[in-house]
Structures are given as structure tokens and as C-alpha cells.
């Protein structure tokens, strides 16, 4: 291993470690999953332990887009626009089955999974997901952030 490669990999690791513990999420809450998201964010489950305790309500200040709840075709351009407004690096979490696949809404109004619109990093299924699965998804996202090649 050359000296340059060694330093790059160590810096990547350091930045990944820092980034995984400073997740500023943007909650894009459209439906009932929002209640479960709030339950997870509150003190009982305390996602501040994972450095994700401070949601930003502007996409320009956020790193992770939490898409929480059913996305209709009417809402789809709004979601795309919010995603486009976020600065790099950014990640997307699909929270609940409606965002993963459309869930049981296979009808004229509902987007059949937000991955048809924007790239998704972590899927958290459930209707709604238990806080435990949300935390599991969050930790998987942390692993992904820490392990990936960092751009800076």
C-alpha cells in the first residue's frame, strides 16, 4: 500500500465516522407513518443516540431525506424537487411500505415505490414500522455512510 492510498483510506474512515454521527434528516411526512417517526424521534427511543436528533425543516440543511408516508402522483414532483434541493452528500430512507413499494395502495393515485422517482439507500418496511425497525434501518444507513467512499 502506497503512502497516498494509506492516508486517503484513513481520511475516508475519519470522515465517514464523523458523517454517520451527524445525520441531519429532512422528514418528508405525508401520512400516518409520521406518528411512528415522531415516536421514534422522541425520548423513549431517542435517535439522538445516533447523532440524528435534530431534524432540519429545510432540504438545503439536510443530509438524509426521510420519506415517511404514501406518495401520490400529485406529490411526486414535490418530492423530486425537495430531493434536488438537498446538497451532496445526501441519502434517502424509504420509511414504511407505501414508500418502499406503494404498499396496499395499488391504485390510480399512488406512486408504486419512491425508487421509481429518486434513488433510495435504505428501505424500512412495515405498516407502520416499529421504532425498533426504524432504528435498525438508521444503523444500516450509518454503516453504509461509514463504509462508502467519501467525497469531500
Amino acid at each position, binding site marked *: 500500500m502506497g503512502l497516498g492510498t494509506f492516508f486517503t483510506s484513513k481520511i475516508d474512515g475519519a470522515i465517514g465516522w464523523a458523517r454517520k454521527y451527524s445525520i441531519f434528516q429532512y422528514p418528508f411526512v405525508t401520512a400516518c407513518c409520521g406518528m411512528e417517526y415522531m415516536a421514534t424521534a422522541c425520548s423513549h427511543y431517542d435517535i439522538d443516540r445516533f447523532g440524528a436528533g435534530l431534524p432540519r425543516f429545510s432540504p438545503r440543511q439536510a443530509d438524509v431525506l426521510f420519506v415517511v408516508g404514501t406518495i401520490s*402522483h400529485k406529490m*411526486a414532483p414535490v418530492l423530486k424537487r425537495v430531493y434536488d434541493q438537498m446538497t451532496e452528500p445526501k441519502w434517502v430512507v424509504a420509511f414504511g411500505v407505501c414508500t418502499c413499494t406503494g404498499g396496499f395502495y395499488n391504485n*390510480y393515485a399512488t406512486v408504486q415505490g419512491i425508487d421509481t422517482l429518486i434513488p433510495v439507500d435504505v428501505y424500512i418496511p412495515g405498516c407502520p414500522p416499529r421504532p425498533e425497525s426504524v432504528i435498525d434501518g438508521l444503523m444500516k444507513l450509518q454503516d453504509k455512510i461509514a463504509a462508502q467512499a467519501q467525497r469531500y
Partner: protein
Amino acid sequence: MDGAAILDALRARFGAGVVEAHDHHGDHTAVVTRDALPGALAFCRDQPELAFDMLMDLTAVDYLKFPGREDGPRFEVVYHLYSVAHNHRVRIKTRVDEDDAVVTSAVPLWPIANWFEREVWDMFGVRFAGHPDPRRLLMYEEFVGHPLRKDYPIDRRQPLIGPAD
């Protein structure tokens, strides 16, 4: 006033304008002709002993291929009225054909009818003559058709962005 008396009052005032009336487990319904509808609704609201000051709901039903009603008018527009003063209710229905699916707007009587009628237009394609703002309510402007009609294909998708299925 009990439901039967409400129906009697409507029949006495509108005669043949009331096509039929029935009582289903205490829910009283009057089916009126489309021409009698504006007068019947105004009568229900303004008559002191009826005083239906609240339009609880306004919706429509598509009877396409409904057993026993294959030849009849396709749509039924349904008004649920409630009187706060007398604590009584009545349901008014009117039937309209597909080629001439127009009903007089109830917005002058109850302002809440504005959004109800926009929803019925959006979902069923029944128009309301005299509506101040006849746009879709729920679906987007680009949407073609009326999704709650029985002949709207169950698998037709019209996304604004993204793939069609």
C-alpha cells in the same frame, strides 16, 4: 320532526317532483327529479320546521352495470342534510344520465358545497351548473378522466413524473 314527517312535507310541497321516498332503518331518503332539486334543497334549508342548516355530505354513486339498474340513469347525486336546531336528518338524491350529467350547484345554499361539488366533478365527472370555481379538487390538472367511475380502468396510471407502472 321525525323522518316520515319530513318526507311528507317534501311530498306535499313538490308532489311529482319527489320520485320516491323510503325509510331504511330510520334513515329517511327522498329521491327528487333534477328539476325539483334546487327548490327542494332551498325548501329544506329555509322552512322553519325543517331548518336543514348543515350540508353534511354531498357525493355521487355510479350505477353502471348495477344489477337491476342497467337501463336507468347512470349517476345518483346524494345530499346528506342535518339540522342543528331540530337534530334531525334527511337524505336527498337525484338521478342524472351520463350524457347530461349536470346538476344545479348548491353553493348558494351551503358554501361547503363548493369543495364537495369539485370532488364529485373530479371523481365522477358530474358537473354542477353555476359553480363558482369548477376545477378538480383532488387530482392534478393533467389527469384525464374520472377515477371513481366504474368504467375507469383499474390499472390505468397517469403519473406526472416517473414510469407509468
